[in-house]
Protein backbone atom coordinates (compact mmCIF):
# COMPACT_ATOMS: atom_id res chain seq x y z
CA UNK A 1 0.00 0.00 0.00
CA UNK A 2 1.19 3.47 -0.82
CA UNK A 3 1.50 5.21 2.52
CA UNK A 4 2.57 8.47 0.94
CA UNK A 5 -0.49 8.55 -1.30
CA UNK A 6 -2.64 7.92 1.75
CA UNK A 7 -0.96 10.69 3.70
CA UNK A 8 -1.08 13.10 0.78
CA UNK A 9 -4.87 12.75 0.80
CA UNK A 10 -5.09 13.66 4.50
CA UNK A 11 -5.41 17.45 4.14
CA UNK A 12 -7.95 17.16 1.33
CA UNK A 13 -10.16 14.79 3.30
CA UNK A 14 -9.91 16.87 6.45
CA UNK A 15 -10.72 20.00 4.45
CA UNK A 16 -13.86 18.40 3.07
CA UNK A 17 -15.08 17.39 6.54
CA UNK A 18 -14.49 20.87 7.90
CA UNK A 19 -16.30 22.41 4.92
CA UNK A 20 -19.25 20.12 5.59
CA UNK A 21 -19.50 21.66 9.02
CA UNK A 22 -17.52 19.31 11.25
CA UNK A 23 -15.50 21.15 13.83
CA UNK A 24 -11.79 20.95 13.24
CA UNK A 25 -10.72 18.97 16.31
CA UNK A 26 -13.33 16.23 15.87
CA UNK A 27 -12.82 16.08 12.12
CA UNK A 28 -9.09 15.65 12.62
CA UNK A 29 -9.66 12.71 14.97
CA UNK A 30 -12.08 11.17 12.49
CA UNK A 31 -9.57 11.48 9.65
CA UNK A 32 -6.86 9.84 11.77
CA UNK A 33 -9.20 6.94 12.45
CA UNK A 34 -9.97 6.64 8.75
CA UNK A 35 -6.24 6.56 7.94
CA UNK A 36 -5.70 3.76 10.42
CA UNK A 37 -8.67 1.89 8.95
CA UNK A 38 -7.24 2.37 5.47
CA UNK A 39 -3.90 0.88 6.51
CA UNK A 40 -5.83 -2.15 7.77
CA UNK A 41 -8.26 -2.61 4.89
CA UNK A 42 -6.60 -1.35 1.72
CA UNK A 43 -3.93 -4.03 1.25
CA UNK A 44 -6.66 -6.66 0.77
CA UNK A 45 -9.30 -4.41 -0.77
CA UNK A 46 -7.74 -1.45 -2.52
CA UNK A 47 -10.45 1.17 -3.17
CA UNK A 48 -11.14 2.44 -6.68
CA UNK A 49 -11.42 5.99 -5.35
CA UNK A 50 -9.08 6.33 -2.34
CA UNK A 51 -10.09 9.88 -1.53
CA UNK A 52 -13.80 9.11 -1.74
CA UNK A 53 -13.28 6.07 0.45
CA UNK A 54 -11.48 8.14 3.08
CA UNK A 55 -14.11 10.90 3.05
CA UNK A 56 -16.89 8.34 3.49
CA UNK A 57 -15.17 6.50 6.33
CA UNK A 58 -14.03 9.66 8.08
CA UNK A 59 -17.44 11.32 7.80
CA UNK A 60 -19.15 8.18 9.16
CA UNK A 61 -16.63 8.10 11.97
CA UNK A 62 -17.26 11.76 12.70
CA UNK A 63 -21.02 11.16 12.86
CA UNK A 64 -20.50 8.16 15.17
CA UNK A 65 -18.47 10.30 17.51
CA UNK A 66 -21.02 13.09 17.33
CA UNK A 67 -23.81 10.66 18.17
CA UNK A 68 -21.84 9.29 21.08
CA UNK A 69 -21.21 12.78 22.29
CA UNK A 70 -24.79 13.75 23.07
CA UNK A 71 -23.71 16.78 24.99
CA UNK A 72 -22.59 18.39 21.81
CA UNK A 73 -25.91 19.34 20.38
CA UNK A 74 -24.59 21.38 17.55
CA UNK A 75 -23.21 18.28 15.96
CA UNK A 76 -26.39 16.35 16.69
CA UNK A 77 -28.26 18.84 14.57
CA UNK A 78 -25.85 18.22 11.79
CA UNK A 79 -27.01 14.61 11.67
CA UNK A 80 -30.35 15.60 10.28
CA UNK A 81 -29.01 18.04 7.82
CA UNK A 82 -27.69 16.81 4.54
CA UNK A 83 -24.16 18.16 4.32
CA UNK A 84 -24.46 21.58 2.79
CA UNK A 85 -22.28 22.08 -0.23
CA UNK A 86 -21.16 25.34 1.35
CA UNK A 87 -20.01 28.42 -0.48
CA UNK A 88 -17.26 27.99 -2.99
CA UNK A 89 -14.15 28.24 -0.85
CA UNK A 90 -12.18 31.44 -1.21
CA UNK A 91 -9.06 29.70 -0.11
CA UNK A 92 -8.19 26.15 -1.02
CA UNK A 93 -9.01 23.66 1.78
CA UNK A 94 -5.50 22.31 1.91
CA UNK A 95 -4.08 25.78 2.17
CA UNK A 96 -6.47 26.71 4.98
CA UNK A 97 -5.30 23.67 6.85
CA UNK A 98 -1.68 24.76 6.63
CA UNK A 99 -2.61 28.20 7.92
CA UNK A 100 -4.64 26.75 10.75
CA UNK A 101 -1.93 24.36 11.88
CA UNK A 102 0.70 27.11 11.82
CA UNK A 103 -1.58 29.69 13.42
CA UNK A 104 0.36 32.41 15.31
CA UNK A 105 -1.53 31.54 18.52
CA UNK A 106 0.38 28.23 18.65
CA UNK A 107 3.86 27.76 20.06
CA UNK A 108 6.38 26.49 17.50
CA UNK A 109 6.46 22.96 18.93
CA UNK A 110 2.65 22.76 18.92
CA UNK A 111 2.42 24.06 15.37
CA UNK A 112 5.00 21.53 14.23
CA UNK A 113 3.21 18.62 15.90
CA UNK A 114 -0.22 19.63 14.62
CA UNK A 115 1.06 20.17 11.09
CA UNK A 116 2.67 16.74 11.02
CA UNK A 117 -0.52 15.07 12.15
CA UNK A 118 -3.31 17.03 10.48
CA UNK A 119 -1.50 17.92 7.25
CA UNK A 120 1.11 15.18 7.15
CA UNK A 121 -1.14 12.35 8.28
CA UNK A 122 1.45 10.97 10.69
CA UNK A 123 0.28 9.21 13.82
CA UNK A 124 0.86 10.67 17.27
CA UNK A 125 3.22 7.79 18.00
CA UNK A 126 5.34 8.50 14.94
CA UNK A 127 5.57 12.17 15.83
CA UNK A 128 6.41 11.38 19.45
CA UNK A 129 9.21 9.06 18.37
CA UNK A 130 10.57 11.57 15.93
CA UNK A 131 10.81 14.19 18.67
CA UNK A 132 11.88 11.78 21.40
CA UNK A 133 9.08 12.54 23.82
CA UNK A 134 6.54 10.12 25.36
CA UNK A 135 3.47 9.45 23.26
CA UNK A 136 1.21 10.74 26.05
CA UNK A 137 3.06 14.06 26.04
CA UNK A 138 2.76 14.38 22.27
CA UNK A 139 -0.94 13.45 22.40
CA UNK A 140 -1.53 16.25 24.89
CA UNK A 141 0.50 18.71 22.87
CA UNK A 142 -1.57 17.95 19.78
CA UNK A 143 -4.93 18.02 21.49
CA UNK A 144 -4.16 21.34 23.16
CA UNK A 145 -3.06 22.73 19.83
CA UNK A 146 -6.28 21.54 18.24
CA UNK A 147 -8.36 23.21 20.90
CA UNK A 148 -6.41 26.42 20.43
CA UNK A 149 -7.12 26.66 16.72
CA UNK A 150 -10.48 24.90 16.62
CA UNK A 151 -12.49 28.09 16.42
CA UNK A 152 -10.23 30.01 14.12
CA UNK A 153 -12.21 31.15 11.11
CA UNK A 154 -10.54 31.61 7.79
CA UNK A 155 -12.13 34.22 5.61
CA UNK A 156 -8.90 35.21 4.02
CA UNK A 157 -5.47 33.93 3.36
CA UNK A 158 -3.29 33.59 6.43
CA UNK A 159 0.35 34.51 6.72
CA UNK A 160 2.49 32.33 4.49
CA UNK A 161 5.61 33.26 6.46
CA UNK A 162 4.35 31.52 9.60
CA UNK A 163 3.67 28.33 7.64
CA UNK A 164 7.13 28.43 6.10
CA UNK A 165 8.77 28.84 9.50
CA UNK A 166 6.98 25.74 10.77
CA UNK A 167 7.98 23.68 7.74
CA UNK A 168 11.57 24.84 8.05
CA UNK A 169 11.57 23.80 11.72
CA UNK A 170 10.42 20.33 10.70
CA UNK A 171 13.13 20.17 8.05
CA UNK A 172 15.85 21.20 10.48
CA UNK A 173 14.97 18.58 13.02
CA UNK A 174 16.84 15.89 11.13
CA UNK A 175 16.19 12.23 11.47
CA UNK A 176 15.30 10.23 14.51
CA UNK A 177 12.61 7.64 14.89
CA UNK A 178 11.20 5.92 11.83
CA UNK A 179 10.07 9.11 10.10
CA UNK A 180 12.47 11.06 7.94
CA UNK A 181 11.38 14.55 8.97
CA UNK A 182 13.51 16.26 6.34
CA UNK A 183 11.86 14.25 3.57
CA UNK A 184 8.47 14.86 5.17
CA UNK A 185 9.12 18.61 5.29
CA UNK A 186 10.00 18.56 1.60
CA UNK A 187 6.82 16.64 0.80
CA UNK A 188 4.69 19.11 2.77
CA UNK A 189 6.41 22.11 1.19
CA UNK A 190 5.94 20.64 -2.26
CA UNK A 191 2.26 20.13 -1.51
CA UNK A 192 2.02 23.72 -0.28
CA UNK A 193 3.76 24.98 -3.42
CA UNK A 194 1.07 23.20 -5.46
CA UNK A 195 -1.67 24.93 -3.46
CA UNK A 196 -0.32 28.48 -3.52
CA UNK A 197 1.73 30.44 -6.00
CA UNK A 198 4.24 32.27 -3.82
CA UNK A 199 7.94 32.88 -4.51
CA UNK A 200 8.98 32.30 -0.91
CA UNK A 201 7.28 28.90 -0.83
CA UNK A 202 9.24 28.07 -3.96
CA UNK A 203 12.36 29.51 -2.32
CA UNK A 204 11.96 27.31 0.74
CA UNK A 205 11.34 24.23 -1.39
CA UNK A 206 14.48 24.97 -3.40
CA UNK A 207 16.47 25.53 -0.21
CA UNK A 208 15.33 22.23 1.29
CA UNK A 209 16.07 20.31 -1.89
CA UNK A 210 19.56 21.79 -2.09
CA UNK A 211 20.39 20.92 1.51
CA UNK A 212 18.85 17.50 1.13
CA UNK A 213 20.89 16.84 -2.00
CA UNK A 214 24.05 17.03 0.10
CA UNK A 215 22.78 14.85 2.91
CA UNK A 216 24.67 11.67 2.01
CA UNK A 217 27.98 13.51 1.93
CA UNK A 218 27.48 15.68 5.01
CA UNK A 219 28.35 12.95 7.51
CA UNK A 220 30.38 9.77 7.43
CA UNK A 221 28.83 6.40 8.26
CA UNK A 222 29.63 6.89 11.96
CA UNK A 223 28.00 10.32 12.08
CA UNK A 224 31.16 12.42 11.85
CA UNK A 225 30.50 15.78 10.20
CA UNK A 226 32.24 16.46 6.92
CA UNK A 227 32.89 20.15 6.22
CA UNK A 228 31.42 21.50 2.98
CA UNK A 229 34.85 21.95 1.39
CA UNK A 230 35.76 18.31 2.04
CA UNK A 231 32.50 16.71 0.93
CA UNK A 232 32.53 14.23 -1.94
CA UNK A 233 30.64 16.28 -4.50
CA UNK A 234 30.11 13.20 -6.63
CA UNK A 235 27.65 12.02 -3.98
CA UNK A 236 25.52 15.13 -4.16
CA UNK A 237 22.11 14.37 -5.64
CA UNK A 238 22.37 16.16 -8.99
CA UNK A 239 18.71 15.49 -9.83
CA UNK A 240 17.51 17.32 -6.71
CA UNK A 241 19.96 20.14 -7.35
CA UNK A 242 18.75 20.59 -10.92
CA UNK A 243 15.13 20.62 -9.78
CA UNK A 244 15.91 23.13 -7.03
CA UNK A 245 17.78 25.45 -9.36
CA UNK A 246 14.90 25.44 -11.81
CA UNK A 247 12.37 26.20 -9.05
CA UNK A 248 14.61 28.92 -7.65
CA UNK A 249 15.21 30.61 -11.00
CA UNK A 250 11.49 30.77 -11.68
CA UNK A 251 10.92 32.27 -8.22
CA UNK A 252 13.70 34.84 -8.54
CA UNK A 253 12.34 35.92 -11.92
CA UNK A 254 9.21 37.13 -10.12
CA UNK A 255 11.33 39.81 -8.48
CA UNK A 256 9.83 39.40 -5.02
CA UNK A 257 12.92 38.44 -3.12
CA UNK A 258 12.60 36.98 0.37
CA UNK A 259 14.93 35.32 2.83
CA UNK A 260 14.33 31.75 1.70
CA UNK A 261 15.02 32.60 -1.92
CA UNK A 262 18.24 34.36 -0.87
CA UNK A 263 19.33 31.40 1.26
CA UNK A 264 18.52 29.05 -1.58
CA UNK A 265 20.58 31.20 -3.94
CA UNK A 266 23.58 30.79 -1.63
CA UNK A 267 23.03 27.04 -1.39
CA UNK A 268 22.70 26.89 -5.18
CA UNK A 269 26.04 28.65 -5.65
CA UNK A 270 27.68 26.02 -3.44
CA UNK A 271 25.93 23.25 -5.35
CA UNK A 272 27.05 24.76 -8.63
CA UNK A 273 30.78 24.49 -7.86
CA UNK A 274 32.36 21.29 -9.13
CA UNK A 275 35.14 21.67 -6.56
CA UNK A 276 35.30 23.71 -3.37
CA UNK A 277 37.96 25.92 -5.02
CA UNK A 278 35.57 26.87 -7.81
CA UNK A 279 33.00 28.30 -5.39
CA UNK A 280 31.92 31.79 -6.39
CA UNK A 281 32.48 33.39 -3.00
CA UNK A 282 32.18 36.94 -4.32
CA UNK A 283 28.63 36.28 -5.43
CA UNK A 284 27.90 34.45 -2.16
CA UNK A 285 28.98 37.54 -0.21
CA UNK A 286 26.60 39.62 -2.32
CA UNK A 287 23.74 37.26 -1.49
CA UNK A 288 24.62 37.45 2.20
CA UNK A 289 24.40 41.24 1.88
CA UNK A 290 20.91 40.83 0.42
CA UNK A 291 19.99 38.41 3.15
CA UNK A 292 21.27 40.76 5.86
CA UNK A 293 19.05 43.50 4.41
CA UNK A 294 16.04 41.15 4.46
CA UNK A 295 16.44 39.62 7.91
CA UNK A 296 18.94 41.65 9.91
CA UNK A 297 19.89 38.37 11.54
CA UNK A 298 23.21 38.19 13.38
CA UNK A 299 23.57 34.57 12.26
CA UNK A 300 23.49 35.75 8.66
CA UNK A 301 26.28 38.23 9.36
CA UNK A 302 28.31 35.50 11.02
CA UNK A 303 28.01 33.35 7.90
CA UNK A 304 28.79 36.40 5.81
CA UNK A 305 32.09 36.79 7.69
CA UNK A 306 33.04 33.27 6.60
CA UNK A 307 32.17 34.09 2.99
CA UNK A 308 34.16 37.35 3.18
CA UNK A 309 37.09 35.35 4.51
CA UNK A 310 36.92 33.12 1.45
CA UNK A 311 36.33 35.92 -1.05
CA UNK A 312 38.80 38.52 0.25
CA UNK A 313 41.11 36.58 2.57
CA UNK A 314 41.10 35.61 6.21
CA UNK A 315 42.04 39.10 7.42
CA UNK A 316 39.00 40.60 5.74
CA UNK A 317 36.85 37.85 7.28
CA UNK A 318 38.24 38.58 10.72
CA UNK A 319 37.56 42.29 10.22
CA UNK A 320 33.95 41.49 9.32
CA UNK A 321 33.75 39.23 12.36
CA UNK A 322 35.12 41.93 14.66
CA UNK A 323 32.00 44.01 14.02
CA UNK A 324 29.75 41.31 15.50
CA UNK A 325 28.78 40.40 19.03
CA UNK A 326 31.19 37.72 20.26
CA UNK A 327 28.50 36.04 22.35
CA UNK A 328 26.65 34.86 19.22
CA UNK A 329 26.24 31.10 18.91
CA UNK A 330 29.05 29.67 16.75
CA UNK A 331 31.05 32.90 16.90
CA UNK A 332 34.05 31.06 18.35
CA UNK A 333 33.82 28.37 15.67
CA UNK A 334 33.89 30.96 12.89
CA UNK A 335 36.72 32.86 14.59
CA UNK A 336 38.71 29.63 14.95
CA UNK A 337 38.27 28.81 11.27
CA UNK A 338 39.35 32.29 10.14
CA UNK A 339 42.36 32.36 12.47
CA UNK A 340 43.51 29.03 11.11
CA UNK A 341 43.20 30.34 7.55
CA UNK A 342 45.21 33.33 8.71
CA UNK A 343 47.97 31.02 9.98
CA UNK A 344 47.51 31.68 13.70
CA UNK A 345 47.22 28.05 14.78
CA UNK A 346 47.58 28.66 18.51
CA UNK A 347 44.64 31.06 18.60
CA UNK A 348 42.63 28.82 16.28
CA UNK A 349 43.18 25.76 18.49
CA UNK A 350 42.16 27.67 21.61
CA UNK A 351 39.02 28.98 19.88
CA UNK A 352 38.08 25.55 18.52
CA UNK A 353 38.20 24.21 22.08
CA UNK A 354 36.04 27.08 23.26
CA UNK A 355 33.62 26.54 20.36
CA UNK A 356 33.35 22.83 21.19
CA UNK A 357 32.33 23.72 24.73
CA UNK A 358 29.51 25.89 23.38
CA UNK A 359 28.37 23.55 20.61
CA UNK A 360 24.62 22.89 20.62
CA UNK A 361 24.88 19.31 19.40
CA UNK A 362 27.08 16.32 19.74
CA UNK A 363 28.22 15.99 16.13
CA UNK A 364 29.33 19.60 16.04
CA UNK A 365 31.07 19.35 19.39
CA UNK A 366 32.99 16.27 18.27
CA UNK A 367 33.90 17.96 14.99
CA UNK A 368 35.20 21.07 16.74
CA UNK A 369 37.11 19.05 19.33
CA UNK A 370 38.72 17.11 16.49
CA UNK A 371 39.71 20.37 14.81
CA UNK A 372 41.34 21.57 18.03
CA UNK A 373 43.11 18.23 18.44
CA UNK A 374 44.33 18.35 14.83
CA UNK A 375 45.90 21.79 15.33
CA UNK A 376 47.37 20.92 18.73
CA UNK A 377 48.94 17.76 17.29
CA UNK A 378 50.38 19.68 14.37
CA UNK A 379 51.81 22.35 16.68
CA UNK A 380 53.55 19.73 18.85
CA UNK A 381 55.22 17.97 15.93
Amino acid sequence: MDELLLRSLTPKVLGILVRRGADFAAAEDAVQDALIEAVRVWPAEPPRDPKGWLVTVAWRRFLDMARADAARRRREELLDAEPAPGPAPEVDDTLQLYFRCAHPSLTPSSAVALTLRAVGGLTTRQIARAYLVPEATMAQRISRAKRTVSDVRFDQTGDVATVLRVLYLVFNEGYSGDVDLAAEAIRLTRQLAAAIDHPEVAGLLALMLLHHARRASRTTADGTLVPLAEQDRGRWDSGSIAEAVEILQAALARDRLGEFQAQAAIAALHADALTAEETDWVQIVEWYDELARLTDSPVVRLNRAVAVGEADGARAGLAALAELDDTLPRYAAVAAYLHERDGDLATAARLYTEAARQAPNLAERDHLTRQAARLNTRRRS
Partner: protein
Amino acid sequence: MAKYLLLKHYRGAPAAVNDVPMDRWTPEEISAHVQYMNDFAARLEANGEFVDGQALAPEGTFVRYDGEGRPPVTDGPFAETKDLIAGWMVIDVDSYERAVELAGELSAAPGAGGKPIHEWLELRPFLTASPNVADCH
Protein backbone atom coordinates in the same frame (compact mmCIF):
# COMPACT_ATOMS: atom_id res chain seq x y z
CA MET B 1 11.68 22.59 21.03
CA ALA B 2 14.60 21.89 23.19
CA LYS B 3 15.10 19.39 25.92
CA TYR B 4 16.40 20.40 29.31
CA LEU B 5 17.42 18.44 32.35
CA LEU B 6 16.25 19.80 35.70
CA LEU B 7 18.77 18.27 38.03
CA LYS B 8 18.22 18.15 41.73
CA HIS B 9 21.57 17.76 43.40
CA TYR B 10 23.60 19.21 46.19
CA ARG B 11 26.90 19.97 44.62
CA GLY B 12 28.17 23.49 44.54
CA ALA B 13 24.93 25.41 44.88
CA PRO B 14 24.19 27.53 47.95
CA ALA B 15 21.82 26.07 50.52
CA ALA B 16 18.10 26.28 49.88
CA VAL B 17 16.23 29.04 51.70
CA ASN B 18 14.03 26.60 53.57
CA ASP B 19 16.56 23.81 54.08
CA VAL B 20 15.16 21.89 57.02
CA PRO B 21 15.92 18.22 56.15
CA MET B 22 12.96 16.12 55.15
CA ASP B 23 13.12 13.83 58.18
CA ARG B 24 12.26 16.79 60.34
CA TRP B 25 9.12 17.71 58.43
CA THR B 26 5.71 16.51 59.54
CA PRO B 27 4.26 13.54 57.63
CA GLU B 28 1.64 15.89 56.19
CA GLU B 29 4.36 18.19 54.93
CA ILE B 30 6.03 15.26 53.20
CA SER B 31 2.73 14.25 51.62
CA ALA B 32 2.17 17.82 50.45
CA HIS B 33 5.64 17.85 48.93
CA VAL B 34 5.09 14.56 47.08
CA GLN B 35 1.70 15.76 45.90
CA TYR B 36 3.25 18.96 44.57
CA MET B 37 5.83 17.01 42.59
CA ASN B 38 3.20 14.66 41.15
CA ASP B 39 0.93 17.54 40.25
CA PHE B 40 3.80 19.35 38.62
CA ALA B 41 4.64 16.33 36.45
CA ALA B 42 0.97 15.80 35.58
CA ARG B 43 0.59 19.42 34.58
CA LEU B 44 3.67 19.23 32.37
CA GLU B 45 2.29 16.16 30.68
CA ALA B 46 -1.02 17.92 30.08
CA ASN B 47 0.96 20.81 28.58
CA GLY B 48 2.82 18.44 26.30
CA GLU B 49 6.14 19.37 27.91
CA PHE B 50 6.96 16.31 30.01
CA VAL B 51 9.60 13.81 28.93
CA ASP B 52 10.81 11.96 31.98
CA GLY B 53 11.28 12.21 35.71
CA GLN B 54 13.16 9.87 38.00
CA ALA B 55 14.29 9.75 41.57
CA LEU B 56 17.59 8.11 42.48
CA ALA B 57 18.59 6.04 45.48
CA PRO B 58 20.95 8.11 47.58
CA GLU B 59 23.81 5.64 47.66
CA GLY B 60 25.77 4.64 44.61
CA THR B 61 28.85 2.63 43.75
CA PHE B 62 31.89 3.85 41.86
CA VAL B 63 33.01 1.45 39.15
CA ARG B 64 36.00 1.42 36.82
CA TYR B 65 37.71 -0.84 34.29
CA ASP B 66 40.69 -2.68 35.77
CA GLY B 67 42.35 -4.22 32.71
CA GLU B 68 41.86 -7.13 30.36
CA GLY B 69 40.33 -10.24 31.95
CA ARG B 70 39.88 -8.64 35.34
CA PRO B 71 36.56 -7.80 36.95
CA PRO B 72 35.73 -4.11 37.27
CA VAL B 73 36.90 -2.41 40.44
CA THR B 74 34.19 -1.07 42.65
CA ASP B 75 34.53 1.42 45.41
CA GLY B 76 32.40 3.55 47.63
CA PRO B 77 29.77 4.47 48.37
CA PHE B 78 31.20 7.81 49.31
CA ALA B 79 27.91 8.94 50.70
CA GLU B 80 28.10 12.55 51.59
CA THR B 81 24.93 14.55 51.38
CA LYS B 82 26.75 17.37 49.66
CA ASP B 83 27.40 15.03 46.70
CA LEU B 84 23.93 13.59 46.47
CA ILE B 85 21.99 13.58 43.22
CA ALA B 86 18.39 13.19 44.27
CA GLY B 87 16.70 12.99 40.90
CA TRP B 88 15.88 14.71 37.69
CA MET B 89 13.17 15.75 35.36
CA VAL B 90 13.49 16.12 31.60
CA ILE B 91 11.31 18.66 29.83
CA ASP B 92 10.77 19.52 26.18
CA VAL B 93 9.96 23.20 25.83
CA ASP B 94 9.89 25.98 23.26
CA SER B 95 12.45 28.24 24.87
CA TYR B 96 15.12 28.66 27.50
CA GLU B 97 12.85 31.20 29.22
CA ARG B 98 10.13 28.59 29.56
CA ALA B 99 12.63 26.11 31.00
CA VAL B 100 13.71 28.66 33.61
CA GLU B 101 10.09 29.37 34.46
CA LEU B 102 9.36 25.67 35.02
CA ALA B 103 12.51 25.12 37.07
CA GLY B 104 11.43 28.04 39.24
CA GLU B 105 8.05 26.40 39.80
CA LEU B 106 9.61 23.08 40.69
CA SER B 107 11.90 24.81 43.16
CA ALA B 108 8.82 26.18 44.91
CA ALA B 109 7.81 22.70 46.11
CA PRO B 110 6.72 23.00 49.73
CA GLY B 111 8.93 21.82 52.59
CA ALA B 112 8.94 22.43 56.31
CA GLY B 113 6.05 24.56 57.50
CA GLY B 114 4.43 24.11 54.08
CA LYS B 115 6.66 26.90 52.80
CA PRO B 116 8.53 26.69 49.46
CA ILE B 117 11.94 25.09 49.77
CA HIS B 118 13.50 27.52 47.28
CA GLU B 119 16.07 24.86 46.50
CA TRP B 120 18.56 25.34 43.69
CA LEU B 121 17.94 23.19 40.65
CA GLU B 122 20.47 22.93 37.88
CA LEU B 123 19.12 23.50 34.39
CA ARG B 124 21.15 21.85 31.65
CA PRO B 125 20.31 21.84 27.93
CA PHE B 126 20.56 18.52 26.08
CA LEU B 127 22.94 18.35 23.18
CA THR B 128 20.95 17.38 20.13
CA ALA B 129 22.07 14.52 17.93
CA SER B 130 22.07 15.59 14.33
CA PRO B 131 22.22 19.05 12.84
CA ASN B 132 20.50 19.01 9.51
CA VAL B 133 21.12 22.22 7.69
CA ALA B 134 24.18 23.98 9.02
CA ASP B 135 27.32 23.12 7.13
CA CYS B 136 30.38 23.24 9.29
CA HIS B 137 33.76 24.67 8.40
